[in-house]
């Protein structure tokens, strides 16, 4: 530790900042992306998205042909019956099974962890002392979390499509509720489904992000977001709530199934998008408002 520190008085800028400092250059998207990329959590989450289709494929290969009928979701359950009819259907099935819970958890993980994890490590105060402007810190973190969430959906979709096509071939998309959809159009519908799922996940993203700002416990933010999502889903099952259900953030979660019918049903997709965008905006606005005025004591 015996060091001779070099001498010389550093120059300063007019606003008092050290030379070379620009608020707009602090904590860039790429820096934050790299910071998160090296985390086990990130790698595991993305890795599982790749592994899930493999597990599904193995399950289909090992499993017998017997099934317990079309219990539960009526004709939509044919989606699982048709899963092995082609790569498109396999990918659709992979999306279908992950939409209600796995993606929710993954998105909540990426967003709930943003600020809360930095706070729990103690690194948040050093970033703020750099200083990274608070709005910028939040904005970059949100952008990176959104990117990783999108990456997760794409990883799942890509792997499932690749595996499914290699194993089951490139065949028309069968939905069980409409006619066969030719592969080209089927791929577009698959992408649209993934797109809507992503938009719908904005609700979870916004909620987890807000909770992440409000608490210093990353698990609390992730768990809280998942919990609230599930509560909303449960309330949505209570038809007695009537019109009020339209305002539940999860009410349109399954609207993507409308993309499998012919012609496609965009009504609920659009309403779902409106709902998701509204919730996302509200949650994020609250998060920014709260964080920009918060005393960081952790």
């Amino acid at each position, binding site marked *: *530790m015996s060091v001779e*520190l070099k001498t010389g008085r550093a120059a300063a800028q007019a606003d008092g900042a*050290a030379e070379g400092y620009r608020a707009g*250059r602090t904590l860039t998207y790429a820096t934050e992306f790299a910071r998160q990329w090296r985390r086990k959590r990130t790698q595991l989450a993305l890795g599982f998205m790749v592994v899930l289709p493999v597990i599904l494929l193995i399950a289909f290969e090992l499993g017998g042909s017997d099934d317990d009928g079309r219990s539960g979701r009526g004709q939509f359950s044919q989606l699982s019956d048709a899963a092995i009819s082609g790569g498109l259907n396999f990918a659709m099935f992979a999306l279908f099974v992950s939409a209600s819970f796995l993606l929710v958890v993954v998105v909540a993980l990426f967003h709930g962890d943003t600020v809360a994890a930095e706070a729990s490590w103690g690194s948040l*105060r050093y970033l703020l*002392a750099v*200083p990274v402007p608070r709005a910028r810190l939040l904005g970059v973190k949100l952008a990176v979390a959104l990117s990783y969430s999108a990456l997760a959906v794409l990883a799942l979709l890509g792997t499932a499509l690749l595996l499914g096509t290699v194993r089951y071939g490139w065949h028309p998309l069968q939905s069980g509720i409409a006619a066969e959809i030719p592969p080209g159009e089927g791929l577009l519908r698959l992408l649209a489904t993934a797109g809507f799922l992503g938009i719908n996940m904005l609700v979870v993203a916004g909620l987890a992000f807000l909770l992440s700002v409000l608490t210093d416990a990353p698990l609390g933010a992730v768990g809280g977001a998942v919990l609230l999502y599930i509560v909303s889903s449960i309330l949505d099952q209570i038809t007695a709530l009537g019109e009020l259900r339209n305002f539940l953030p999860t009410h349109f979660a399954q609207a993507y199934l*409308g993309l499998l019918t012919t012609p496609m049903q965009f009504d609920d997709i659009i309403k779902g998008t409106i709902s998701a965008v509204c919730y996302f905006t509200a949650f994020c606005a609250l998060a920014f408002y709260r964080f920009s005025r918060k005393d960081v004591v952790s």
Partner: protein
Amino acid sequence: MLLAGLAAWAVWPEDPGYRTVDERVSVRTGPLGDQDVSLDTRLYLPDGASAGNKVPALLLAHGFGGTKESVALDAQDLAGLGYAVLTWTAQGFGASTGQIHLNSPDYEVRDAQRLLDHLAKRDDIQLDASGDPRVGVLGGSYGGALSLLLAAQDKRVDAIVPMITWNDLGKSLFAQSAATTDDGVFKQAWAGVFFSSGMSGGRGGGGGLDLESLGANGEAPGEGGEAPGAGGAGPANLNPQCGRWAADICQTYLRVAAAGRLDADSRQQLAARSPGSVLNQIKAPTLLIQGLADSLFPLTEADANARGIAANGTPVRVAWFSGGHDGGDGPQSDADRLKFLTAQWFDHYLKGNGEAPAASFTYSRITGLDAVDRGTMATGYQITDYPGLTGQSAVQVPVSGGPRTVANPPNGTPAALSSLPGTGSGALSSFVNGVVSDLPGQHARFESAPLAQAVSVVGTPSVQIRAASPTGEAVLYVKLYDVDPNGSAALSMGLIAPVRLTGLPTAIDQARPVQVTLPGIVREFEAGHRLRITIATADQSYLGLAAPVDYTVAVGPADGGGLVTLPTAPGTPIATADALWLYVLLGLVALLAVGLAIVIVVARRRHRRVDHSVSAAHADTPLWVRGLRKTYGDFVAVDSIDFTVERGQVVGLLGPNGAGKTTSLRVLMGLTQATAGEVLIFGHRLAPGAPVLSRIGALVEGPGFLPHLSGEQNLAAYWRATGRPWEEARFDDALAIAGLGDAVKRKVKNYSHGMKQRLAVAQAMLGLPELLVLDEPTDGLDPPQIAEMRRVLQRYASDGRAVLVSSHLLAEVEQTCTHAVVVHKGRVVASGRVDEIVGDSPTTLLDVTDIDLASKTLDRLDGVTGYAVDGERTLVVDLGDVSRTDAVSALVRAGVGIDRVTPRRRLEDAFLALVGDSTAGSGDR
């Protein structure tokens, strides 16, 4: 609070926009007009209706088995549109007296005429002439037929909207799809459902769900208590065989149901109760609404009504929807469309508002299941002119297969199941593709090749069949399936075509082809799908032939294959609310973009308004703090702190735990906002995120690293986050300060506390900031490292930089710092050079054997400033000018035994003197 608001909103009484008048209206009815019947009525009067503001009226009739309650919701809707809506319970049902005459012109229709009289007497109903109210009539099923019959019988009716009703009741109940005889096959399931619901006089009040209630899909009979005692028709007095049915109708039913055939009397009796015979009398503009999922009154009934009424030159419009007696209300989009059409119809023909509605024909096709609400989704289509059931054009598809032998089971059991009469709405999804099970041996299949292109069928397909029977007679059920490439077959809406054939040869080669009109459907047969014609011998909904015989059946003429004729009528999709929602979405996105832009602009402007002035007097002072105060609610963490850190100084911030050191440092780093006071860093006013913070390196409240990165990666990631040029970091210097050796490549989560601490100091020194703020920097370090750290800090400040160290290790501050600031209970109790605070006179501890003697000796010694007794054997002595050696020898000479002589740590004295013995921090005040 949100919940409370929602609850309040939910229970808040809403102005319904109408008031109701419940009234029993006595009418004289019967062929001679001499029978008194008391009708249970309810009039819905819209707000504002009065003698000065007369409103047009609507008669809203309920379905079979219903009461005035079952149409309540529709009545409320219509009253909301500004009509006086009169609902009543038809005679023989509910609380009305009388008997069920099945829409007899002498009874039910006459009752309705008397109700028109009743309306005409009111002063708030608009009149066309004296005794002639401006009135429309609507209803479903039983009520629909009444509206047609009333319009034919009474010219005062100005417009009608009959829904899912019959043209010929005889033909409806005895269905015949073959173009041979009129003799049909008895719809025993439906007939039974209706007859039984008339036994008890109909269900009572209850839901009243739109068309479900309009359409008499004969739910379980209502509560017995609903029936009145007035007419002597209470449950106790009911005839066990006929219930509230009129005797003549009851006897007819018993006769034809037993025989399974319609005789001449009954045919005539039913014809009198059917609009078919009086269509030429109808002059009131008619909007006919018929259901696609209706095995009781199929599309052919509405088609016959439409053609009959249009022949008079009366305006007629036809609409089909994906519901009916089997399918209920159908999808929401259909319900909305029908409501719109009905309102438009009455608005023009009763109120005179708007253009005359076009004669265009609208229908809907089931497109799938609603993914969100689990209902059925349908798309509406529109065609300029009603094309009838045979479509605008036709496609012919050959089906192949030779003659097959099929067995008729004895008494029609076991039989195939195609529909479930009376189960009503809500089950529409199960009807979309039918619930069919064909029994082996009882049916023959004839399939087409896969369709080359999709065919969108709108209307009644048809096919020719041939049959041979040993008895010369056969009852067959012809079905058209849509078979997908996987082989699963769908029967559209579960509709089948029953045919009764007579005069058949015993051999199939002698059989003549018979044209069979299949049920009307709206369905898209996809490309690649096949058509399948199935001819079956028994069906649970129909009464077939009892004799167990074998038939031979085939399709098409003997010399060629069968051809299925598919009518098509391409329609234009009706725009739905989708488009509106899309605009809402686009508007929302635009709004958000604008909102975001405004927020950014406002934030920039506010940022510009912040005081950026530089205090020239302090421009070269690394840190200048005055009146710093921080409170959390009532709790005062920092009361008022003033101090200054000049270049070249190493300033120690001293204080007991809770004195406010860390809180002050947090404010200095911009992590928390001060309640009051001013902090200048190089003359720049400090605020959270102020750019001048970039000239400060800090270690506050322990290290904070990303555990998944190595020490080196952490430093690199931190520097990258500053966005400053890489070469300014002085990375190697910092690593050397950390002194972690190879450990710097290991992940931080495996570091000891001391290692993290050193890495944190190194991070604070990255870029050699002009002001270094370190909170307990030696925490977790071992003594050699502490010594090294001391040297590093002293050297760091020697070059015009400054260091602020907070610590509770007094010796360390004493040895490291040039200056000290002592904080206690949120206030500065001393500040200045360390040696000034310590003072010039060091003290010494003396443990002596005789404390009195020692005291006396010291008293006599010149130069001793003072002393204090501390315990039984210890003296704290301020020796002043006297050297320690002289003092000890003087004491020894005096005979005082000395156990121990200890020079006191000087800053500690000063510290204790300043803050007292209390260990309580500011938090305990």
